[in-house]
């Protein structure tokens, strides 16, 4: 867990701080980004709105659930993408899709809650199974569970419709708005992502989150203090599974289809890459990682062609980028940003100090 351990600047819990205080505490950067995201439909083209930003936010939510487990619980679970894929499948199975002989055609307001509930249950069960293991073992076992799910969806035709999966899964029309439209869908994902972000920030400072961070830093001491470490970890899995399940529902509405590849080994590992590249120390990290990832996936082809390299090799680019980040900045892009800011501040302070002392006495 060496990666996740150091320098988590956890804010000391303030007693009973109101919403207004929380809002007032945010820096200008937060407000600029928030305002920019809200007015984005006025500036950006539909392609950027949905293919880049909405997609990045959906992936960011799944990676956020991974970040919550890894950053606050010290549990690197690769099961999150599988939970999302399971939720996506359930929406297609209970709701409506082009595969009419399997889909049950429930209205979305029953299909979606049931899908989220079952996916959460799945994530919790997977967590309960892998919670018996620690650290590095967790990666392996969750990876194995994930690939078991992948093979199940690939080979089962009665429920999961095998290789081809489900297509024609449409976002619902609700309150007279077609949520599959560009702008409504963008706002839907923005709302969900913001909600997930806020909830994670809140939980990380709530007693449960603090106890979870305690179990990350020293499980033995927490157990001695009377906290049930295993129960806290399973609860963390359950909480993360809820976020991943929501993201899974959005994912199936975004792609309008779901197939075994959605939860394959590639995407499962990609989620870890996104979370690590963004940074595991803060909830904003996964979203940054997801944005970088989506941008790379979309434009690497052109970029590589432009520098005179074969465009098909974008996987190489992603691999190298990931390797460089892991080797040189263990806390991801956020870590780089923080270090740069730190250095800038230090040089400013040094300058100020020099000015004050009059700069070179003799």
């Amino acid at each position, binding site marked *: 867990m060496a990666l996740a351990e150091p320098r988590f600047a956890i804010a000391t819990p303030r007693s009973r701080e109101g919403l207004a205080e929380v809002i007032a505490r945010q820096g200008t950067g937060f407000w600029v980004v928030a305002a920019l995201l809200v007015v984005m439909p006025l500036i950006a083209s539909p392609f950027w709105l949905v293919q880049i930003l909405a997609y990045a936010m959906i992936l960011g939510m799944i990676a956020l659930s991974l970040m919550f487990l890894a950053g606050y619980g010290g549990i690197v679970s690769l099961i999150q993408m599988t939970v999302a894929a399971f939720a996506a499948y359930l929406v297609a199975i209970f709701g409506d899709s082009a595969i009419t002989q399997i889909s049950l055609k429930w209205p979305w307001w029953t299909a979606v809650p049931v899908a989220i509930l079952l996916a959460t249950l799945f994530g919790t069960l997977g967590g309960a199974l892998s919670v018996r293991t620690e650290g590095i073992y967790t990666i392996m076992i969750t990876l194995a569970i994930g690939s078991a799910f992948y093979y199940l969806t690939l080979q089962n035709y009665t429920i999961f419709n095998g290789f081809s999966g489900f297509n024609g899964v449409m976002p619902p029309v609700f309150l007279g708005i077609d949520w599959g439209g560009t702008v409504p869908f963008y706002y839907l994902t923005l709302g969900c992502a913001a909600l997930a972000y806020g909830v994670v920030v809140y939980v990380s400072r709530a007693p449960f989150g603090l106890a979870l961070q305690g179990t990350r830093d020293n499980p033995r001491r927490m157990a001695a203090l009377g906290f049930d470490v295993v129960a806290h970890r399973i609860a963390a899995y359950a909480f993360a599974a809820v976020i991943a399940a929501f993201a899974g529902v959005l994912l199936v509405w975004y792609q309008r289809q779901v197939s075994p590849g959605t939860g394959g080994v590639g995407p499962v590992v990609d989620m870890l*890459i996104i979370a690590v590249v963004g940074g595991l120390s803060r909830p904003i990290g996964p979203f940054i990682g997801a944005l970088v990832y989506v941008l790379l996936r979309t434009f690497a082809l052109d970029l590589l062609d432009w520098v005179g390299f074969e465009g098909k090799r974008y996987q190489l680019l992603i691999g190298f980028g990931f390797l460089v980040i892991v080797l040189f900045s263990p806390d991801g892009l956020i870590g780089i940003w923080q270090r740069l800011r730190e250095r800038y501040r230090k040089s400013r302070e040094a300058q100020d100090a020099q000015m004050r002392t009059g700069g070179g006495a003799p």
Partner: protein
Amino acid sequence: MSDFIGRRPIWSLVILIAVALLLFLIFAVWTPWMELTFGRKRVFLSALFNGITLGGLYFLVASGFTLIFGLMRNVNLAHGSLYLFGGYVGYSIGNLTGSWFAALIGAFVIVALAGILMQVLLFRWMEGQDLRQTLVTIGLSIIVADLLLWGYGGDTFQVTTPDWLSGPIQLPFIVALRSNGEAVMMMYPLVRIAILIGAIILGVAMWLALNRTRIGMLVRAGVDDRDMLSATGVRVQLVFIMVFAFGAGLAGLAGVVGGTFQSLQPGEDTKILLSSLVVVIVGGMGSIPGAAMGALIVGLAEQFGSVYMPTYAVMLTFVIMVVVLAIRPQGLAAVRR
């Protein structure tokens, strides 16, 4: 052995009965009633042998994986890539020289060198940082997979079997009786038998090397307490490099072996990695006998699964893993510390 029988009389009896039943199933001439319940005897026997030989291949891959993990706590998720790399290297060497043995040895040496490079250039600098090492291996596996795709394309390759190993041989098992009472014997590809024997010899040699030589002693000491070993003046880094080279080399060798009786193509690396993960989880991390046991179980489960319940063959191995995890989380053969 007698100790085990003394401690677990009931389990010993169950195991004994199971073994006896298995031997009966293998050697007996099946009655029509048995053919009705289990299907043709030929199918049963070939599933059994395919499972055991597949287990031999899995053992080759997983023993390197488990050795590296046991000593260095490094979950090498690039192990599958080393396997595929070794397979492609062996294919190229085999094409150039026309010799299967040259391919085998060449793949071992070249992949072992790659392993040394990985250990010296990367993992040495992040010792004790498990997660970071794992992430680095993930990055490496992505890069290697794409480089191999670049170099060899998406086609399927097969390493040519040498003449003296190709073709089937007759095994002393009766598959069925002809109407005139003549026994039909089982025919089985020689190369698979050879690979199985090779894997068994290698396993025994590894066990002997680990338990009877000085280097093996160092490795075992390193598995138990790395810091104490280095405190006694042993150059632990050298031991690490050797073990990493050997483990990686085994993966490369297994690549050639797998390329001979299966095939090489992109995606094979993840498949083999997942299999060895399950093998190692089932058998117990860092234990060579555990790897052998796990490899046998997974190989048999895959083959019998694909014969008797084809839809869920791959699921079966994972179900076994989950059951083992639930009952004995440290793996079947691991010692609890």
